[in-house]
């Protein structure tokens, strides 16, 4: 990447959404604001190599995008006047031209002050319940994260037209259905969707890190953390937001030890704890402690607390498994999720032995189609020395088409069980 390319990418990631949010507020149209910002970024790539990078790139972006938005609105208005003069019918499906003539007067206000609330409303707009869930993710990365459509497509291993279509459709629905960029009456409901979106982007980071095509993919782990940090600032450290942020940081701190050089999974028990990112764990501890001090518990804080017990334990044996089992029980009560119960089964096995863990696992009836359910049962059965049943569970897990790394792991497990049985 050249210096200019780096500067433009930084501008897109760090400042574009502030500018977009302010322009959307000013001109009442996400479409106009987004197009203007995109055009300004293209102009930056085209002109900066010769003219040099401006001293204040964010200010430059605001000025340039603002001018492009006004040009576009003037052109739209002129076109409408022309058509009306030509006696054409009122334009039926045209974007509603928002506001009066005042909007088109360039008052030269290019301040980025107070962009925070606009940016928060933009984030919440991207997660409006009237948008379909897949679009929410794409739109958040595009409009708030400042990622380009090709970048998002490659991060999600989707083809570009599919993703572009998704974004276009979502923007069209925002425009045509009149979805406002205003503060929702129930911020909790909307914030819950937004956290879900950020959680999903973070988890998708695993997918993007195991790609084989040699493309440089944006690191979704870092993008999710960046956006969650931004949300934390904008909502003044809401406990569940910080819970999610801490969870992401704990997970990120261990990410280098999760796989070996062949891309094979390394279980938590076997991970090299000296390679964990201590500084990041300390930061996560601080964020989590701040969240917990508010005494307003929620599922992300509980998950972060579980992650913190792992991250701060000196070894697998030194881990407070009874506490973790208890936290999983709390999480299960909050979410009603059988996946959580499956995780609890593992923690209970560590705390009270394989039999206790197995009885929790076997109380689950809804996960028969999940390879992980059978993989966990296989491991617990192995620990209980029920070799034949363990092998059978491994077969069932393999039949359910696990991802390649898990498939290799299960095959190694099978060999181990066979060896143990022979002893």
């Amino acid at each position, binding site marked *: 990447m050249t210096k200019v390319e780096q500067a433009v990418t930084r501008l897109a990631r760090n400042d574009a959404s502030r500018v977009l949010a302010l322009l959307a507020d000013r001109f009442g149209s996400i479409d106009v604001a987004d197009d203007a910002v995109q055009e300004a970024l293209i102009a930056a790539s085209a002109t900066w190599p010769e003219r040099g990078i401006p001293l204040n790139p964010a200010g430059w972006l605001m000025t340039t995008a603002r001018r492009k938005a006004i040009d576009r609105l003037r052109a739209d208005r002129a076109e409408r006047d022309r058509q009306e003069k030509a006696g054409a019918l009122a334009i*039926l499906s045209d974007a509603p031209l928002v506001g009066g003539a005042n909007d088109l007067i360039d008052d030269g206000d290019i301040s980025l002050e107070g962009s925070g609330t606009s940016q928060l409303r933009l984030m919440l707009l991207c997660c409006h319940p*009237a948008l379909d869930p897949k679009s929410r993710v794409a739109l958040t990365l595009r409009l708030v994260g400042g990622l380009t459509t090709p970048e998002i497509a490659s991060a999600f291993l989707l083809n570009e037209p599919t993703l572009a279509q998704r974004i276009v459709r979502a923007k069209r629905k925002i425009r*045509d*259905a*009149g*979805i406002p960029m205003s503060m929702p*009456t129930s911020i909790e409901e909307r914030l819950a969707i937004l956290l879900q979106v950020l959680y999903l982007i973070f988890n998708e980071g695993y997918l993007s890190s195991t790609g084989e095509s040699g493309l440089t993919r944006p690191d979704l782990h870092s993008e999710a953390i960046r956006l969650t940090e931004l949300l934390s600032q904008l909502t003044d450290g809401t406990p569940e937001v910080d819970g999610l942020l801490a969870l992401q940081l704990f997970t990120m701190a261990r990410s280098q030890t999760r796989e070996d050089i062949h891309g094979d999974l390394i279980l938590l028990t076997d991970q090299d704890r000296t390679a964990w990112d201590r500084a990041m764990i300390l930061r996560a501890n601080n964020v989590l402690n701040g969240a917990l001090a508010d005494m307003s518990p929620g599922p992300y804080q509980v998950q972060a607390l579980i992650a913190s017990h792992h991250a701060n334990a000196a070894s697998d044996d030194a881990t407070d498994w009874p506490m973790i089992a208890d936290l999983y029980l709390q999480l299960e009560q909050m979410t009603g999720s059988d996946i959580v119960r499956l995780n609890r089964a593992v923690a209970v096995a560590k705390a009270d032995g394989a039999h206790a863990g197995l009885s929790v696992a076997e109380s689950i009836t809804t996960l028969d189609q999940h390879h992980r359910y059978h993989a966990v049962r296989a491991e617990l059965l192995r620990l209980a020395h029920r070799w034949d049943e363990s092998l059978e569970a491994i077969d069932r897990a393999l039949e359910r088409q696990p991802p390649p790394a898990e498939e290799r792991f299960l095959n190694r497990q099978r060999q181990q069980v066979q060896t143990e049985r022979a002893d």
Partner: protein
Amino acid sequence: MEYMLINHTDPNGPGPAPGTPEFEEFMGRWMAYNQKLIEGGHWVAGASLAPPDTATTVERANMEAVGTVDGPYAETKEVFSGFYLIKADNLDIALALAKDMPVDTGFIEVRPVAFRPDA
């Protein structure tokens, strides 16, 4: 903007019988809702439709009427049972009004109006 709130409800679903005190109360809720729309400046039009067994569906294809059949367009448990045409500044306001509608059980589809010749 204008939105149409389209009700899809089960004609055999729960609801009080006409003449009972519960029915009076039920109608009262609808009257109050209508009043709220009028006073809030949202009202454009609204109607409750006769049951689907009174419906007749006309089909057109290639710019011609090709058939007329007895019954509503889609045979589902829920039927298109009524509508409101309202004015609201944005979808959030329209959704809030839809959520307040005293429908016992059913779905309310909210759609922006694209064009209305008499508007």
